[in-house]
Protein backbone atom coordinates (compact mmCIF):
# COMPACT_ATOMS: atom_id res chain seq x y z
CA UNK A 1 0.00 0.00 0.00
CA UNK A 2 1.25 3.50 -0.63
CA UNK A 3 0.87 6.16 2.00
CA UNK A 4 0.43 9.89 1.99
CA UNK A 5 2.04 11.91 4.75
CA UNK A 6 -0.06 14.73 6.20
CA UNK A 7 1.61 17.36 8.34
CA UNK A 8 0.81 20.58 10.11
CA UNK A 9 3.48 22.68 11.79
CA UNK A 10 3.51 24.70 14.98
CA UNK A 11 6.39 27.12 15.21
CA UNK A 12 7.36 28.92 18.40
CA UNK A 13 9.11 32.11 17.45
CA UNK A 14 10.91 34.00 20.22
CA UNK A 15 10.34 37.71 19.73
CA UNK A 16 13.41 39.93 19.89
CA UNK A 17 12.10 42.44 22.40
CA UNK A 18 14.44 44.04 24.92
CA UNK A 19 12.39 42.93 27.91
CA UNK A 20 10.11 40.00 28.70
CA UNK A 21 6.49 39.84 27.57
CA UNK A 22 5.04 40.50 31.05
CA UNK A 23 7.97 41.88 33.05
CA UNK A 24 10.83 44.34 32.82
CA UNK A 25 13.52 41.64 33.04
CA UNK A 26 16.04 41.46 30.18
CA UNK A 27 15.26 39.14 27.30
CA UNK A 28 18.70 37.86 26.35
CA UNK A 29 20.19 34.48 25.67
CA UNK A 30 23.04 32.95 27.60
CA UNK A 31 23.05 34.66 31.01
CA UNK A 32 23.99 32.91 34.27
CA UNK A 33 21.10 30.80 35.62
CA UNK A 34 18.18 32.81 37.01
CA UNK A 35 19.83 36.23 36.91
CA UNK A 36 17.29 37.38 34.32
CA UNK A 37 14.29 35.98 36.16
CA UNK A 38 12.59 38.71 38.18
CA UNK A 39 9.81 38.28 40.74
CA UNK A 40 7.14 38.29 38.01
CA UNK A 41 8.99 35.67 35.96
CA UNK A 42 9.35 33.47 39.06
CA UNK A 43 5.63 33.71 39.75
CA UNK A 44 6.33 35.08 43.23
CA UNK A 45 3.24 35.62 45.41
CA UNK A 46 1.43 38.88 44.62
CA UNK A 47 3.23 39.51 41.34
CA UNK A 48 1.20 40.58 38.29
CA UNK A 49 1.82 40.70 34.53
CA UNK A 50 1.95 43.88 32.45
CA UNK A 51 2.02 43.46 28.69
CA UNK A 52 4.99 44.58 26.60
CA UNK A 53 3.87 46.89 23.77
CA UNK A 54 6.56 45.65 21.38
CA UNK A 55 5.38 42.06 21.66
CA UNK A 56 1.95 43.21 20.49
CA UNK A 57 3.43 45.29 17.67
CA UNK A 58 5.58 42.39 16.46
CA UNK A 59 2.57 40.07 16.39
CA UNK A 60 0.58 42.63 14.40
CA UNK A 61 3.52 43.08 11.99
CA UNK A 62 3.55 39.35 11.40
CA UNK A 63 -0.20 39.28 10.88
CA UNK A 64 -0.03 42.07 8.32
CA UNK A 65 2.90 40.41 6.54
CA UNK A 66 0.87 37.25 5.88
CA UNK A 67 -2.33 39.18 5.06
CA UNK A 68 -4.03 37.59 8.03
CA UNK A 69 -7.23 38.69 9.66
CA UNK A 70 -6.21 40.45 12.86
CA UNK A 71 -7.98 39.87 16.13
CA UNK A 72 -8.89 43.48 16.87
CA UNK A 73 -9.93 42.20 20.29
CA UNK A 74 -7.71 39.44 21.59
CA UNK A 75 -7.58 37.90 25.02
CA UNK A 76 -4.98 36.08 27.10
CA UNK A 77 -5.88 32.76 28.68
CA UNK A 78 -4.24 30.61 31.29
CA UNK A 79 -3.10 27.15 30.22
CA UNK A 80 -2.80 25.14 33.39
CA UNK A 81 -0.28 22.36 34.00
CA UNK A 82 2.45 21.59 36.47
CA UNK A 83 6.08 21.46 35.37
CA UNK A 84 9.22 22.75 37.05
CA UNK A 85 10.04 25.13 34.20
CA UNK A 86 6.56 26.69 34.42
CA UNK A 87 6.75 28.84 37.55
CA UNK A 88 3.11 29.84 38.00
CA UNK A 89 1.66 26.43 37.20
CA UNK A 90 0.07 28.02 34.16
CA UNK A 91 1.29 29.52 30.94
CA UNK A 92 -0.25 32.79 29.84
CA UNK A 93 -1.22 32.18 26.24
CA UNK A 94 -4.08 32.99 23.86
CA UNK A 95 -6.52 30.16 23.32
CA UNK A 96 -10.01 31.47 22.64
CA UNK A 97 -9.25 34.77 20.88
CA UNK A 98 -5.77 34.98 19.29
CA UNK A 99 -4.23 38.20 18.00
CA UNK A 100 -3.59 36.83 14.50
CA UNK A 101 -6.31 34.78 12.80
CA UNK A 102 -6.41 33.07 9.38
CA UNK A 103 -3.74 34.02 6.89
CA UNK A 104 -1.91 32.61 3.91
CA UNK A 105 1.72 32.31 3.15
CA UNK A 106 3.19 31.50 -0.28
CA UNK A 107 6.36 29.49 -0.17
CA UNK A 108 8.78 29.59 -3.13
CA UNK A 109 9.81 26.03 -4.01
CA UNK A 110 13.04 24.99 -5.76
CA UNK A 111 11.28 24.30 -9.04
CA UNK A 112 10.19 27.91 -9.15
CA UNK A 113 6.59 27.18 -8.14
CA UNK A 114 4.80 28.80 -5.22
CA UNK A 115 3.33 26.54 -2.53
CA UNK A 116 0.50 28.11 -0.53
CA UNK A 117 0.34 27.33 3.20
CA UNK A 118 -2.75 28.25 5.21
CA UNK A 119 -1.96 29.76 8.59
CA UNK A 120 -4.62 28.83 11.13
CA UNK A 121 -3.62 31.36 13.74
CA UNK A 122 -0.71 32.99 15.51
CA UNK A 123 -0.90 33.92 19.15
CA UNK A 124 1.21 35.54 21.81
CA UNK A 125 2.37 33.59 24.83
CA UNK A 126 5.17 33.38 27.35
CA UNK A 127 8.06 30.94 27.05
CA UNK A 128 8.89 28.52 29.86
CA UNK A 129 12.24 28.14 31.59
CA UNK A 130 14.82 25.41 31.02
CA UNK A 131 15.74 22.30 32.91
CA UNK A 132 19.29 21.02 33.28
CA UNK A 133 19.23 17.28 33.80
CA UNK A 134 22.81 16.10 33.99
CA UNK A 135 24.57 18.44 36.37
CA UNK A 136 23.21 17.10 39.66
CA UNK A 137 22.83 13.51 40.83
CA UNK A 138 19.17 12.61 41.13
CA UNK A 139 18.15 16.22 40.70
CA UNK A 140 17.19 18.55 37.91
CA UNK A 141 18.30 22.18 37.92
CA UNK A 142 15.74 24.77 36.85
CA UNK A 143 16.81 28.00 35.15
CA UNK A 144 13.97 30.48 34.65
CA UNK A 145 15.86 33.08 32.60
CA UNK A 146 13.87 32.06 29.54
CA UNK A 147 10.55 32.15 31.42
CA UNK A 148 8.52 35.07 30.14
CA UNK A 149 10.34 35.45 26.83
CA UNK A 150 7.68 36.55 24.34
CA UNK A 151 6.68 33.87 21.87
CA UNK A 152 4.58 34.01 18.77
CA UNK A 153 3.15 30.55 18.17
CA UNK A 154 2.32 30.14 14.50
CA UNK A 155 0.03 27.25 13.63
CA UNK A 156 -0.64 25.96 10.09
CA UNK A 157 -3.39 23.84 8.62
CA UNK A 158 -2.35 20.25 7.79
CA UNK A 159 -1.18 21.36 4.34
CA UNK A 160 2.21 19.70 4.07
CA UNK A 161 2.75 16.44 2.19
CA UNK A 162 6.54 16.32 1.96
CA UNK A 163 9.50 17.17 4.14
CA UNK A 164 10.71 19.52 1.40
CA UNK A 165 7.51 21.55 1.71
CA UNK A 166 7.85 21.67 5.48
CA UNK A 167 11.45 22.80 5.30
CA UNK A 168 10.70 25.38 2.60
CA UNK A 169 7.92 26.78 4.82
CA UNK A 170 10.23 26.99 7.82
CA UNK A 171 12.91 28.71 5.77
CA UNK A 172 10.39 31.19 4.40
CA UNK A 173 9.07 31.83 7.90
CA UNK A 174 12.59 32.33 9.17
CA UNK A 175 13.24 34.73 6.33
CA UNK A 176 10.06 36.68 7.04
CA UNK A 177 10.84 36.97 10.75
CA UNK A 178 14.30 38.26 9.92
CA UNK A 179 12.87 40.81 7.47
CA UNK A 180 10.38 42.06 10.00
CA UNK A 181 13.11 42.17 12.62
CA UNK A 182 10.76 40.51 15.08
CA UNK A 183 13.09 37.62 15.89
CA UNK A 184 16.78 36.94 15.64
CA UNK A 185 15.82 33.54 14.20
CA UNK A 186 18.78 31.86 15.86
CA UNK A 187 17.67 28.24 15.76
CA UNK A 188 20.68 26.94 17.66
CA UNK A 189 19.66 29.14 20.59
CA UNK A 190 16.04 28.08 20.32
CA UNK A 191 14.69 31.32 18.86
CA UNK A 192 12.65 29.29 16.40
CA UNK A 193 11.35 25.89 17.49
CA UNK A 194 9.16 23.58 15.54
CA UNK A 195 6.58 20.96 16.52
CA UNK A 196 5.44 18.65 13.74
CA UNK A 197 1.98 17.08 13.71
CA UNK A 198 2.25 14.10 11.44
CA UNK A 199 -0.05 11.33 10.31
CA UNK A 200 -0.27 8.85 7.46
CA UNK A 201 -3.21 7.86 5.32
CA UNK A 202 -3.58 5.55 2.32
CA UNK A 203 -2.91 7.51 -0.85
CA UNK A 204 -6.19 8.76 -2.23
CA UNK A 205 -7.98 8.75 1.12
CA UNK A 206 -9.38 12.05 2.31
CA UNK A 207 -9.69 11.14 5.97
CA UNK A 208 -6.94 12.02 8.39
CA UNK A 209 -5.07 9.27 10.21
CA UNK A 210 -4.18 9.43 13.91
CA UNK A 211 -1.38 11.91 14.38
CA UNK A 212 1.60 12.17 16.61
CA UNK A 213 3.24 15.43 17.61
CA UNK A 214 7.00 15.62 17.43
CA UNK A 215 8.25 18.27 19.80
CA UNK A 216 11.01 20.80 19.54
CA UNK A 217 12.74 19.97 16.32
CA UNK A 218 15.27 22.72 16.15
CA UNK A 219 17.06 22.74 12.82
CA UNK A 220 16.01 22.46 9.18
CA UNK A 221 18.12 19.33 8.86
CA UNK A 222 16.48 17.68 11.87
CA UNK A 223 13.03 18.54 10.54
CA UNK A 224 13.79 16.51 7.43
CA UNK A 225 15.27 13.65 9.41
CA UNK A 226 12.52 13.61 12.03
CA UNK A 227 9.82 13.54 9.35
CA UNK A 228 11.58 10.71 7.53
CA UNK A 229 12.08 8.58 10.62
CA UNK A 230 8.59 9.17 12.01
CA UNK A 231 7.01 8.44 8.63
CA UNK A 232 8.94 5.19 8.53
CA UNK A 233 7.89 4.30 12.07
CA UNK A 234 4.21 5.00 11.48
CA UNK A 235 4.30 3.11 8.21
CA UNK A 236 5.84 0.09 9.95
CA UNK A 237 3.18 0.19 12.65
CA UNK A 238 0.33 0.51 10.16
CA UNK A 239 1.64 -2.12 7.78
CA UNK A 240 2.11 -4.63 10.55
CA UNK A 241 -1.56 -4.15 11.44
CA UNK A 242 -1.02 -1.86 14.41
CA UNK A 243 -2.61 1.48 15.23
CA UNK A 244 -0.95 4.81 15.87
CA UNK A 245 -1.31 6.19 19.37
CA UNK A 246 -2.03 9.89 19.53
CA UNK A 247 0.90 11.09 21.60
CA UNK A 248 3.70 13.55 21.94
CA UNK A 249 7.08 12.29 20.82
CA UNK A 250 10.55 13.68 21.15
CA UNK A 251 13.07 13.61 18.29
CA UNK A 252 16.45 12.37 19.44
CA UNK A 253 19.00 13.71 16.98
CA UNK A 254 21.84 11.55 18.34
CA UNK A 255 20.00 8.29 17.85
CA UNK A 256 17.91 9.60 14.93
CA UNK A 257 14.70 8.26 16.42
CA UNK A 258 11.47 9.56 17.89
CA UNK A 259 10.22 8.31 21.24
CA UNK A 260 7.13 8.91 23.34
CA UNK A 261 7.66 11.60 26.00
CA UNK A 262 7.28 10.20 29.51
CA UNK A 263 6.27 13.55 30.95
CA UNK A 264 3.37 13.73 28.51
CA UNK A 265 2.07 10.23 29.20
CA UNK A 266 -0.76 11.43 31.40
CA UNK A 267 -3.23 13.18 29.13
CA UNK A 268 -3.41 16.77 30.26
CA UNK A 269 -6.51 18.80 30.77
CA UNK A 270 -5.20 22.34 30.42
CA UNK A 271 -8.31 24.04 31.82
CA UNK A 272 -7.95 27.15 29.64
CA UNK A 273 -9.82 30.19 30.88
CA UNK A 274 -9.43 33.96 30.39
CA UNK A 275 -6.45 35.29 32.38
CA UNK A 276 -8.08 37.55 34.99
CA UNK A 277 -4.88 39.51 35.63
CA UNK A 278 -4.93 40.89 32.08
CA UNK A 279 -7.58 42.72 30.08
CA UNK A 280 -8.50 42.38 26.41
CA UNK A 281 -6.02 43.83 23.92
CA UNK A 282 -7.85 46.17 21.59
CA UNK A 283 -6.12 47.22 18.38
CA UNK A 284 -7.84 49.81 16.23
CA UNK A 285 -7.48 50.82 12.59
CA UNK A 286 -5.21 53.70 13.46
CA UNK A 287 -2.80 51.39 15.24
CA UNK A 288 -2.88 48.87 12.43
CA UNK A 289 -2.26 51.57 9.80
CA UNK A 290 0.70 52.89 11.76
CA UNK A 291 2.23 49.42 11.99
CA UNK A 292 1.51 48.75 8.31
CA UNK A 293 3.14 51.95 7.13
CA UNK A 294 6.29 51.09 9.04
CA UNK A 295 6.59 47.59 7.55
CA UNK A 296 9.77 46.94 5.56
CA UNK A 297 9.57 45.60 2.00
CA UNK A 298 8.48 42.00 2.51
CA UNK A 299 10.29 39.03 0.93
CA UNK A 300 7.46 38.23 -1.50
CA UNK A 301 7.26 41.83 -2.70
CA UNK A 302 11.01 42.08 -3.01
CA UNK A 303 11.12 38.77 -4.86
CA UNK A 304 8.61 39.97 -7.40
CA UNK A 305 10.49 43.23 -7.81
CA UNK A 306 13.84 41.43 -8.35
CA UNK A 307 12.23 39.30 -11.04
CA UNK A 308 10.78 42.26 -12.92
CA UNK A 309 13.49 44.83 -12.25
CA UNK A 310 16.58 42.63 -12.66
CA UNK A 311 15.17 39.91 -14.91
CA UNK A 312 16.10 37.18 -12.43
CA UNK A 313 14.57 33.73 -12.34
CA UNK A 314 11.99 32.95 -9.66
CA UNK A 315 14.48 30.62 -8.01
CA UNK A 316 17.44 33.04 -8.00
CA UNK A 317 15.21 35.80 -6.74
CA UNK A 318 13.91 33.60 -3.92
CA UNK A 319 17.44 32.73 -2.88
CA UNK A 320 18.62 36.35 -2.99
CA UNK A 321 15.76 37.70 -0.86
CA UNK A 322 16.36 35.11 1.87
CA UNK A 323 17.66 37.72 4.28
CA UNK A 324 17.51 41.50 4.03
CA UNK A 325 21.31 41.61 4.27
CA UNK A 326 21.75 39.32 1.29
CA UNK A 327 19.11 41.17 -0.71
CA UNK A 328 20.79 44.50 0.04
CA UNK A 329 24.16 43.05 -0.89
CA UNK A 330 22.77 41.96 -4.21
CA UNK A 331 21.06 45.26 -4.92
CA UNK A 332 24.16 47.28 -4.12
CA UNK A 333 26.39 45.08 -6.27
CA UNK A 334 23.89 44.83 -9.12
CA UNK A 335 23.33 48.57 -9.24
CA UNK A 336 27.04 49.31 -9.36
CA UNK A 337 27.96 46.55 -11.81
CA UNK A 338 24.96 47.25 -14.04
CA UNK A 339 24.98 43.49 -14.76
CA UNK A 340 22.35 42.05 -12.42
CA UNK A 341 22.17 38.54 -13.86
CA UNK A 342 25.96 38.13 -13.73
CA UNK A 343 25.98 39.58 -10.22
CA UNK A 344 23.32 37.10 -9.09
CA UNK A 345 25.33 34.23 -10.54
CA UNK A 346 28.49 35.32 -8.75
CA UNK A 347 26.73 35.81 -5.42
CA UNK A 348 24.91 32.49 -5.54
CA UNK A 349 27.95 30.73 -7.02
CA UNK A 350 31.49 31.68 -6.05
CA UNK A 351 30.63 33.99 -3.16
CA UNK A 352 28.13 31.58 -1.58
CA UNK A 353 30.63 28.75 -2.02
CA UNK A 354 33.43 30.68 -0.35
CA UNK A 355 31.22 31.83 2.52
CA UNK A 356 30.03 28.29 3.02
CA UNK A 357 33.58 26.92 2.94
CA UNK A 358 34.68 29.35 5.68
CA UNK A 359 31.35 29.12 7.61
CA UNK A 360 30.65 32.80 7.23
CA UNK A 361 27.39 34.71 6.98
CA UNK A 362 26.87 37.27 4.25
CA UNK A 363 27.36 40.16 6.65
CA UNK A 364 30.78 38.72 7.50
CA UNK A 365 31.88 38.47 3.89
CA UNK A 366 35.46 39.73 3.32
CA UNK A 367 34.31 40.79 -0.15
CA UNK A 368 32.01 43.77 0.03
CA UNK A 369 29.19 44.33 -2.43
CA UNK A 370 31.19 47.25 -3.89
CA UNK A 371 34.30 45.09 -4.38
CA UNK A 372 32.29 42.36 -6.03
CA UNK A 373 30.70 44.94 -8.34
CA UNK A 374 34.22 46.07 -9.33
CA UNK A 375 34.98 42.51 -10.38
CA UNK A 376 31.70 42.09 -12.26
CA UNK A 377 32.34 45.30 -14.19
CA UNK A 378 35.64 43.88 -15.40
CA UNK A 379 33.99 40.66 -16.49
CA UNK A 380 31.25 42.53 -18.28
CA UNK A 381 33.69 44.73 -20.20
CA UNK A 382 35.78 41.67 -21.17
CA UNK A 383 38.80 42.72 -19.20
CA UNK A 384 38.54 39.37 -17.39
CA UNK A 385 37.69 35.93 -18.62
CA UNK A 386 35.71 33.85 -16.17
CA UNK A 387 38.88 31.95 -15.39
CA UNK A 388 40.82 35.12 -14.63
CA UNK A 389 37.84 36.44 -12.71
CA UNK A 390 38.10 33.52 -10.31
CA UNK A 391 41.70 34.50 -9.61
CA UNK A 392 40.70 38.10 -9.01
CA UNK A 393 37.93 36.91 -6.70
CA UNK A 394 40.52 34.98 -4.70
CA UNK A 395 42.45 38.22 -4.41
CA UNK A 396 39.36 40.05 -3.23
CA UNK A 397 38.69 37.30 -0.67
CA UNK A 398 42.26 37.77 0.60
CA UNK A 399 41.54 41.48 0.73
CA UNK A 400 44.36 42.42 -1.61
CA UNK A 401 42.50 45.51 -2.79
CA UNK A 402 39.98 46.40 -5.47
CA UNK A 403 39.47 44.22 -8.53
CA UNK A 404 41.36 46.69 -10.70
CA UNK A 405 44.27 46.82 -8.28
CA UNK A 406 44.46 43.03 -8.20
CA UNK A 407 44.31 42.81 -12.01
CA UNK A 408 47.12 45.28 -12.20
CA UNK A 409 49.24 43.75 -9.45
CA UNK A 410 48.84 40.16 -10.61
CA UNK A 411 49.03 41.15 -14.26
CA UNK A 412 45.82 39.34 -15.00
CA UNK A 413 44.57 41.61 -17.76
CA UNK A 414 43.07 39.75 -20.66
CA UNK A 415 44.91 40.19 -23.98
CA UNK A 416 42.40 41.90 -26.19
CA UNK A 417 44.91 43.63 -28.42
CA UNK A 418 44.23 42.01 -31.85
CA UNK A 419 47.77 42.63 -33.12
CA UNK A 420 49.48 40.94 -30.19
CA UNK A 421 47.06 38.07 -30.27
CA UNK A 422 47.41 37.66 -34.03
CA UNK A 423 51.16 37.31 -33.61
CA UNK A 424 50.67 34.56 -31.05
CA UNK A 425 48.18 32.76 -33.31
CA UNK A 426 50.54 32.95 -36.27
CA UNK A 427 53.34 31.55 -34.20
CA UNK A 428 51.25 28.59 -33.02
CA UNK A 429 50.09 27.80 -36.57
CA UNK A 430 53.64 27.93 -37.76
CA UNK A 431 54.85 25.65 -34.94
CA UNK A 432 52.22 22.95 -35.53
CA UNK A 433 51.93 22.27 -39.28
CA UNK A 434 50.71 18.64 -38.80
CA UNK A 435 47.81 19.69 -36.67
CA UNK A 436 46.95 22.44 -39.12
CA UNK A 437 46.80 19.93 -41.95
CA UNK A 438 44.71 17.60 -39.86
CA UNK A 439 42.31 20.44 -38.99
CA UNK A 440 41.88 21.55 -42.50
CA UNK A 441 41.17 17.98 -43.69
CA UNK A 442 38.59 17.33 -41.00
CA UNK A 443 34.86 17.64 -41.33
CA UNK A 444 33.24 20.69 -39.86
CA UNK A 445 31.95 19.02 -36.73
CA UNK A 446 35.36 17.49 -36.01
CA UNK A 447 37.07 20.81 -36.57
CA UNK A 448 35.47 22.18 -33.45
CA UNK A 449 37.18 19.56 -31.34
CA UNK A 450 40.55 20.12 -32.99
CA UNK A 451 40.27 23.87 -32.48
CA UNK A 452 40.60 23.29 -28.76
CA UNK A 453 44.22 22.26 -29.24
CA UNK A 454 45.11 25.62 -30.84
CA UNK A 455 43.17 27.56 -28.21
CA UNK A 456 45.11 25.73 -25.51
CA UNK A 457 48.44 26.52 -27.16
CA UNK A 458 47.68 30.23 -27.53
CA UNK A 459 46.35 30.40 -23.93
CA UNK A 460 49.57 28.80 -22.77
CA UNK A 461 51.58 31.35 -24.72
CA UNK A 462 49.47 34.22 -23.33
CA UNK A 463 49.65 32.83 -19.79
CA UNK A 464 45.88 32.41 -19.90
CA UNK A 465 45.23 36.05 -20.55
CA UNK A 466 44.00 35.84 -24.13
CA UNK A 467 40.43 36.94 -24.56
CA UNK A 468 38.71 33.66 -25.45
CA UNK A 469 36.12 35.11 -27.84
CA UNK A 470 38.69 37.16 -29.76
CA UNK A 471 41.11 34.26 -29.84
CA UNK A 472 38.43 31.98 -31.25
CA UNK A 473 37.53 34.39 -34.02
CA UNK A 474 41.16 34.91 -34.99
CA UNK A 475 42.05 31.22 -34.95
CA UNK A 476 39.10 30.14 -37.05
CA UNK A 477 39.80 32.88 -39.58
CA UNK A 478 43.54 32.08 -39.79
CA UNK A 479 43.10 28.29 -40.01
CA UNK A 480 40.49 28.66 -42.72
CA UNK A 481 42.39 31.21 -44.82
CA UNK A 482 45.88 30.08 -45.75
Amino acid at each position, binding site marked *: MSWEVVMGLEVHLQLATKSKIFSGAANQFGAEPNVQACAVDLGMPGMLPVLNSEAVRYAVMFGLAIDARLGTRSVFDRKNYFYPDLPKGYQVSQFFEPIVCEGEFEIPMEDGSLFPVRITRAHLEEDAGKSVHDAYT*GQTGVDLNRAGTPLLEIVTEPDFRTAAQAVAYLKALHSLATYLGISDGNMAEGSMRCDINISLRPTGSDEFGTRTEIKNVNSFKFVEKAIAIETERQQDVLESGGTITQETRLYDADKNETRAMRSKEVANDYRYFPEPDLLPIIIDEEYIDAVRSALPELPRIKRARFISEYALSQYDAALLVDTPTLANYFETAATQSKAPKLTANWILGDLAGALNRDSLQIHQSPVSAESLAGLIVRIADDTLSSKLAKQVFEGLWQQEGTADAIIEARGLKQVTDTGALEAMVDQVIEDHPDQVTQYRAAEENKQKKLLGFFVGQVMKASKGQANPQLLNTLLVAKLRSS
Partner: protein
Amino acid sequence: MDSTPAPRGHLANASALSVRDFIVAKLSSVRHGKNTTKSASSSFVLRNECINVGVFGQGESVVASPLSHHSVYPAMITIPADVLSMAQLARLRIDEDALDDVSERFGRTLQLVAELEKIDTEGVTPMSNPHDMNQRLRPDSVTESNQREALQQNAPAVADGFFLVPKVID
Protein backbone atom coordinates in the same frame (compact mmCIF):
# COMPACT_ATOMS: atom_id res chain seq x y z
CA MET B 1 -33.26 21.31 29.79
CA ASP B 2 -35.55 19.69 32.31
CA SER B 3 -36.36 16.24 31.11
CA THR B 4 -34.55 13.72 33.30
CA PRO B 5 -37.12 12.62 35.83
CA ALA B 6 -35.98 10.69 38.87
CA PRO B 7 -32.86 12.32 40.31
CA ARG B 8 -34.15 15.79 39.56
CA GLY B 9 -36.89 15.78 42.15
CA HIS B 10 -34.93 17.78 44.67
CA LEU B 11 -33.72 20.26 42.14
CA ALA B 12 -37.13 20.96 40.66
CA ASN B 13 -38.50 21.67 44.09
CA ALA B 14 -35.52 23.74 44.91
CA SER B 15 -36.54 26.54 42.59
CA ALA B 16 -39.28 27.46 45.01
CA LEU B 17 -37.05 27.28 48.07
CA SER B 18 -34.77 29.79 49.65
CA VAL B 19 -31.05 29.26 49.33
CA ARG B 20 -30.89 28.03 52.90
CA ASP B 21 -33.71 25.53 52.39
CA PHE B 22 -32.25 24.59 49.08
CA ILE B 23 -28.90 23.82 50.61
CA VAL B 24 -30.48 21.77 53.36
CA ALA B 25 -32.39 19.84 50.72
CA LYS B 26 -29.15 19.30 48.85
CA LEU B 27 -27.38 17.94 51.85
CA SER B 28 -29.91 15.20 52.34
CA SER B 29 -30.08 14.41 48.66
CA VAL B 30 -26.35 14.02 48.38
CA ARG B 31 -26.00 12.00 51.54
CA HIS B 32 -28.63 9.77 50.14
CA GLY B 33 -27.12 9.67 46.69
CA LYS B 34 -23.63 8.91 47.85
CA ASN B 35 -24.27 5.20 48.00
CA THR B 36 -26.04 4.98 44.70
CA THR B 37 -23.21 3.14 43.01
CA LYS B 38 -24.89 2.85 39.64
CA SER B 39 -25.29 6.52 38.89
CA ALA B 40 -21.95 7.14 40.45
CA SER B 41 -20.07 4.84 38.16
CA SER B 42 -21.76 6.20 35.06
CA SER B 43 -20.71 9.70 35.96
CA PHE B 44 -17.20 8.44 36.43
CA VAL B 45 -17.08 7.01 32.93
CA LEU B 46 -18.42 10.19 31.43
CA ARG B 47 -15.94 12.32 33.21
CA ASN B 48 -13.01 10.14 32.39
CA GLU B 49 -13.82 10.29 28.72
CA CYS B 50 -13.73 14.03 28.90
CA ILE B 51 -10.42 14.12 30.62
CA ASN B 52 -8.70 11.58 28.43
CA VAL B 53 -9.44 13.56 25.31
CA GLY B 54 -6.84 15.90 26.62
CA VAL B 55 -6.94 19.21 24.85
CA PHE B 56 -9.80 21.38 25.96
CA GLY B 57 -12.45 21.87 23.39
CA GLN B 58 -12.09 18.57 21.63
CA GLY B 59 -13.71 16.93 24.59
CA GLU B 60 -16.83 18.97 24.21
CA SER B 61 -18.42 16.74 21.66
CA VAL B 62 -18.29 13.89 24.15
CA VAL B 63 -20.33 15.78 26.70
CA ALA B 64 -22.30 17.93 24.35
CA SER B 65 -25.24 15.61 24.05
CA PRO B 66 -25.91 15.03 27.75
CA LEU B 67 -25.53 18.76 28.25
CA SER B 68 -27.89 19.86 25.58
CA HIS B 69 -30.57 17.21 25.99
CA HIS B 70 -30.76 16.93 29.72
CA SER B 71 -28.93 18.62 32.49
CA VAL B 72 -25.35 17.87 33.38
CA TYR B 73 -26.20 18.27 37.04
CA PRO B 74 -28.15 15.07 37.71
CA ALA B 75 -25.08 13.10 36.72
CA MET B 76 -23.06 15.22 39.06
CA ILE B 77 -23.22 13.02 42.11
CA THR B 78 -19.64 12.79 43.06
CA ILE B 79 -17.72 9.72 43.91
CA PRO B 80 -14.19 9.32 45.15
CA ALA B 81 -12.93 8.60 41.64
CA ASP B 82 -13.96 12.06 40.46
CA VAL B 83 -12.31 13.65 43.43
CA LEU B 84 -9.18 11.66 42.79
CA SER B 85 -8.97 12.71 39.17
CA MET B 86 -9.41 16.38 40.14
CA ALA B 87 -6.82 15.93 42.87
CA GLN B 88 -4.42 14.46 40.35
CA LEU B 89 -4.88 17.45 38.03
CA ALA B 90 -4.42 19.85 40.94
CA ARG B 91 -1.45 17.90 42.33
CA LEU B 92 -3.10 17.29 45.68
CA ARG B 93 -2.89 14.01 47.55
CA ILE B 94 -5.92 12.82 49.46
CA ASP B 95 -5.39 10.25 52.20
CA GLU B 96 -7.42 7.12 51.65
CA ASP B 97 -9.21 7.35 54.98
CA ALA B 98 -10.19 10.97 54.31
CA LEU B 99 -11.40 10.28 50.80
CA ASP B 100 -15.05 9.63 51.61
CA ASP B 101 -15.27 12.72 53.73
CA VAL B 102 -13.55 14.93 51.15
CA SER B 103 -15.72 13.48 48.40
CA GLU B 104 -18.89 14.19 50.28
CA ARG B 105 -17.97 17.80 51.00
CA PHE B 106 -16.73 18.26 47.46
CA GLY B 107 -20.05 16.95 46.19
CA ARG B 108 -22.06 19.15 48.53
CA THR B 109 -20.18 22.20 47.37
CA LEU B 110 -20.78 21.29 43.75
CA GLN B 111 -24.48 20.76 44.31
CA LEU B 112 -24.72 24.43 45.13
CA VAL B 113 -24.12 25.33 41.52
CA ALA B 114 -27.29 23.57 40.39
CA GLU B 115 -28.86 26.95 41.25
CA LEU B 116 -27.45 28.33 38.03
CA GLU B 117 -29.33 25.87 35.91
CA LYS B 118 -32.48 27.89 36.53
CA ILE B 119 -31.10 30.96 34.83
CA ASP B 120 -31.52 31.46 31.12
CA THR B 121 -28.19 32.74 29.85
CA GLU B 122 -28.81 32.30 26.15
CA GLY B 123 -26.80 34.94 24.30
CA VAL B 124 -25.33 36.51 27.44
CA THR B 125 -21.68 37.48 27.00
CA PRO B 126 -19.56 35.95 29.76
CA MET B 127 -18.05 38.53 32.10
CA SER B 128 -14.41 37.96 32.99
CA ASN B 129 -13.70 41.28 34.61
CA PRO B 130 -15.89 43.91 36.28
CA HIS B 131 -14.80 46.71 33.99
CA ASP B 132 -14.92 47.28 30.32
CA MET B 133 -11.31 48.36 30.17
CA ASN B 134 -8.55 47.59 27.69
CA GLN B 135 -5.15 46.19 28.43
CA ARG B 136 -2.53 48.87 29.05
CA LEU B 137 0.78 48.37 27.27
CA ARG B 138 4.16 48.74 28.88
CA PRO B 139 7.07 50.34 26.99
CA ASP B 140 9.66 47.73 26.01
CA SER B 141 12.46 48.60 28.39
CA VAL B 142 14.51 46.63 30.87
CA THR B 143 13.60 47.80 34.35
CA GLU B 144 14.70 44.82 36.44
CA SER B 145 18.26 44.02 37.40
CA ASN B 146 19.63 40.79 38.78
CA GLN B 147 17.85 40.04 42.08
CA ARG B 148 18.69 36.34 42.18
CA GLU B 149 20.16 36.33 45.65
CA ALA B 150 17.19 38.12 47.23
CA LEU B 151 14.64 36.12 45.29
CA GLN B 152 16.23 32.77 46.11
CA GLN B 153 16.25 33.46 49.86
CA ASN B 154 12.87 31.74 50.01
CA ALA B 155 13.83 28.78 47.83
CA PRO B 156 13.95 25.41 49.58
CA ALA B 157 16.71 23.95 47.37
CA VAL B 158 19.17 25.79 45.11
CA ALA B 159 22.63 25.08 43.71
CA ASP B 160 24.81 27.30 41.52
CA GLY B 161 21.85 29.59 40.95
CA PHE B 162 19.55 26.76 39.82
CA PHE B 163 16.37 25.77 41.63
CA LEU B 164 16.56 22.05 42.34
CA VAL B 165 13.78 19.51 41.92
CA PRO B 166 13.83 15.70 41.90
CA LYS B 167 15.13 14.37 38.60
CA VAL B 168 12.75 15.06 35.73
CA ILE B 169 12.47 12.67 32.80
CA ASP B 170 11.19 14.24 29.56
